[in-house]
C-alpha cells in the first residue's frame, strides 16, 4: 500500500470565504495525498474545513469561496484550473460524492431506478434500457432486496439506511476512481451505520476505488480507514496510518479527540472533552491555532506555527512537543492504556494466526 501510486495530490491548498464580516480563512495550507485503493479519513470538528476541502476537489465550492493558493492534481490535471464544463465530465465518472443526509439527498419525485441510471446515461451515453439493467445490478450490489420490484419506487418508500444505499449506488455506478464520503453515516442509527460501512468496504474492493472519508467520529474511522488526517482550524495537524493515529498519536488535539471517544471498555463514569471552542477563522491566531485549548501548550505555540515533525516515515504531526528542545510530555492516561492494549491484542492476533492459519480477511 505504501508504494501505491498517488491518485490525488492536494498541495498547499488555501481557501478563503468572503463574507460580510470579512475574509474567513477556511483552509490554511492543506496538503495530502490519496493513494489508489486506499481509504483516507479526514477527521475534525465542525468547521475545521473537512467539507470545504472535498467541495474544492469536486469543484463545487460556494460562490463566495476564493482559492487563494494551491493545486489539486488528479490524472495529470489541476482540478482547480478546470472549467465548470470540464469538471462536469469529471464528477461521477472520476470523482463521486455521497452526502450526509440520505433523507434529503434523493429527488423525491423521480423513480430511484432512474436516479441511479442517470449518471450512466448522462456521461456514458448508455441507452435507457441498458442503463436500467445496470441500475438493477447496482441496486443488488448495494443490498437492496427485491431490486426488480423496487426499481420503480420513489425515495419516500425507503428507510434512511436503504436510501443511503441508493445514494451509494448512484455514486458508484460509473466506477469512479475516487469516492468522497462526507459523513455518510452521521444521520443513521448505529446498527445501520455498521451495515453501510461494511457495504462501502465491500464495494471498494469490488470496484477498486479510493475513498476520502470525512467524519467527526473517530469510532467510524477505526474500522474504515487505512490512513487518517486530523484537521483543526483549516489545517491538517497530524496524519499517519490509522494504527499510528489511534495507538501512537502525537498531537495534543488528536489526544483530545481520542480521549473524548467512548469505547466499550472505558469506565463510563466520565467522558473527557476538549475545553473551549475552535478559533475564529476571520482572524486566525498567530502560532498554533490549538494552543488556547491545549493544556500542553508551550510558550512557542503562541508565537510560531509548528512545522510537521516526522514520527515515522508515514506519520507526521505538527506540534512543538516533538521538537527535540521541547520538554518530555507523556500523553494522557487513556491514550497510554490504549497503546498497551493494542500491543497486547496484536500479540494475541499474531499467536492466533499461527494457530489456525486463517487470514483475518476471510471473516470479513
Amino acid at each position, binding site marked *: 500500500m505504501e508504494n501505491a501510486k498517488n491518485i490525488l495530490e492536494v498541495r498547499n491548498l488555501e481557501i478563503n470565504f468572503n463574507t460580510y464580516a470579512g475574509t474567513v480563512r477556511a483552509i490554511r495550507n492543506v496538503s495530502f495525498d490519496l493513494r489508489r485503493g486506499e481509504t483516507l479519513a479526514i477527521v475534525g470538528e465542525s468547521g475545521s474545513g473537512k467539507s470545504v476541502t472535498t467541495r474544492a476537489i*469536486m469543484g*463545487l465550492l460556494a460562490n463566495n469561496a476564493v482559492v487563494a493558493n494551491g493545486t489539486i492534481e488528479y490524472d495529470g490535471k489541476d482540478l482547480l484550473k478546470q472549467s465548470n464544463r470540464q*469538471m*462536469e*465530465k*469529471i*464528477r*461521477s*465518472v472520476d470523482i*463521486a*460524492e455521497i*452526502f450526509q*443526509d440520505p433523507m*434529503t*439527498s*434523493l*429527488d*423525491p*419525485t*423521480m423513480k430511484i431506478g432512474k436516479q441511479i441510471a*442517470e*449518471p450512466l446515461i*448522462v*456521461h456514458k451515453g448508455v441507452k435507457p434500457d441498458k442503463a436500467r439493467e445496470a441500475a438493477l445490478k447496482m441496486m443488488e450490489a448495494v443490498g437492496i432486496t427485491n431490486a426488480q420490484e423496487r426499481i420503480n419506487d*420513489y425515495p*419516500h418508500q425507503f428507510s434512511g439506511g436503504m436510501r443511503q444505499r441508493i*445514494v451509494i449506488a*448512484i*455514486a458508484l455506478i460509473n466506477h469512479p476512481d475516487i469516492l468522497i464520503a462526507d459523513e455518510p453515516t452521521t444521520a443513521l442509527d448505529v446498527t445501520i451505520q455498521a451495515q453501510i460501512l461494511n457495504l462501502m468496504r465491500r464495494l471498494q474492493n469490488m470496484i477498486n476505488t479510493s475513498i476520502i472519508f470525512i467524519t467527526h467520529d473517530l469510532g467510524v474511522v477505526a474500522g474504515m480507514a487505512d490512513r487518517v488526517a486530523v484537521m483543526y482550524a483549516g489545517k491538517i495537524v497530524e496524519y499517519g496510518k490509522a494504527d499510528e493515529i489511534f495507538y501512537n498519536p502525537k498531537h495534543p488535539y488528536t489526544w483530545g479527540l481520542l480521549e473524548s471517544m467512548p469505547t466499550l471498555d472505558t469506565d463510563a463514569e466520565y467522558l473527557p472533552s476538549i475545553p473551549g471552542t475552535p478559533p475564529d477563522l476571520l482572524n486566525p491566531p498567530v502560532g498554533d491555532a490549538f494552543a488556547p485549548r491545549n493544556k500542553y501548550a508551550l510558550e512557542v505555540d503562541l508565537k510560531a506555527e509548528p512545522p510537521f515533525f516526522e514520527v515515522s516515515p508515514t506519520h507526521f504531526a505538527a506540534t512543538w512537543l516533538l521538537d527535540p528542545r521541547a520538554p518530555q510530555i507523556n500523553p494522557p492516561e487513556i491514550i497510554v492504556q490504549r497503546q498497551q492494549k493494542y500491543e497486547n491484542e496484536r500479540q494475541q492476533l499474531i499467536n492466533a494466526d499461527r494457530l489456525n492459519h486463517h487470514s483475518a480477511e476471510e471473516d470479513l
Partner: protein
Amino acid sequence: MAKYLLKRLFYLLLTLFIVITITFFLMKLLPGTPLNNQAKLSKSQIAVIYQQYGLDKPVWQQYLSYLGNILHGNFGTSFQFSDQPVSYLISSRIGASLQLGFQAIIVGVPIGTLIGAIGAVKKNTWVDTTTTIISILGISIPSFVLAVLFQYFFGVKLHWFPIANWGSFIFTVLPTLALAVSPLAESARFMRTEMVDVMNSDYIELAKAKGLTKIGIIYHHALRNSLIPLLTVVGPLAVGIMTGSMVVENIFSIPGIGELFVKSVLTNDYPTIMGLTIVYSVMLMVVLLITDIIYSLVDPRIRLTDKG
C-alpha cells in the same frame, strides 16, 4: 379512490349548505329592499308584491322555503330582470366569464412560472431583481386600474383592440390581459420562492455531484419539484379571477356573471345573489378537489386515501 371521492362530495355539500345559510342571513342584513328604486309604488302595491315573492314572511321561513326550492332545483326568479329564472340568467352569462378566466390563466400562469423560474436560476442578479419588480407591481396594481390603462393605450390611442363590449375573440384580448396580470405575478412570486428552495436542496447538490449540467439539473430535477407545489395555487387563483373579474367585466361591459353579481347586490336581487354565491362556491370547491386529484397523480408522495 371512489370512496375518497364520495367522502369529498359529502363535505362539498356540507360546506355548500353552510355557505348558503351564512350568505342568506347576511344578505337579509343588507340595507334596502328589492323595491328601493320603485318610488312610485304605493304601500299597498308593495305589500302585494312582497306577498307574491314571500318576502312578507319571517326570515327563517323564507330561508326554509329557499332550501326546499333549491333541493327541487328551483333557484327562483330574478327581481331585477322581470321574471327571468336565475338558472337561465346565470347559464346564459357564465360562458363569457369562464372564457375570460380560462384565457387569463392560460396566459398568466405559464408566463409567470417562466419569469419566476428565471428569477430563481439567476438569483441575486439584476435579472432576478427585474422579475421580482414585475411580480410586485403585478400583485399591487389592481386589475381594474390596468383595465382602464389598457383601454386607453391599446383601445383609444393605438386602436389595436375594441375598447369594450362582447363579441368575437378580439373583444376578449384586453380584459384577458387585465385579468392575467395577477395570476402572472402570483405564480412568478410563488415559483421563484419554490425554486430557490429546491435549488438549495440536497438532491440538487447530489445532481451536481452526478456531473449534470446546469440545464440538465433544472430540467430533470428542479422544475418538476417546484412545479408540483405551484399546482396548489393555480386552482384557487383561477377561481379568484372569476370572482375578481366583477369590476373588470363592468369596465369592459362584458355580460358575465361578475357584472351580474355587482348588479344583483346593488338592487337587492336576493335569488340572483344566492344563485351566484352557490355557483362561485361550487366552482371553488370543485377546483380544489380537482387540484387534489391532480396533485396525487403527479406527486408520488401523495396518495388519496379514505382516511384523514
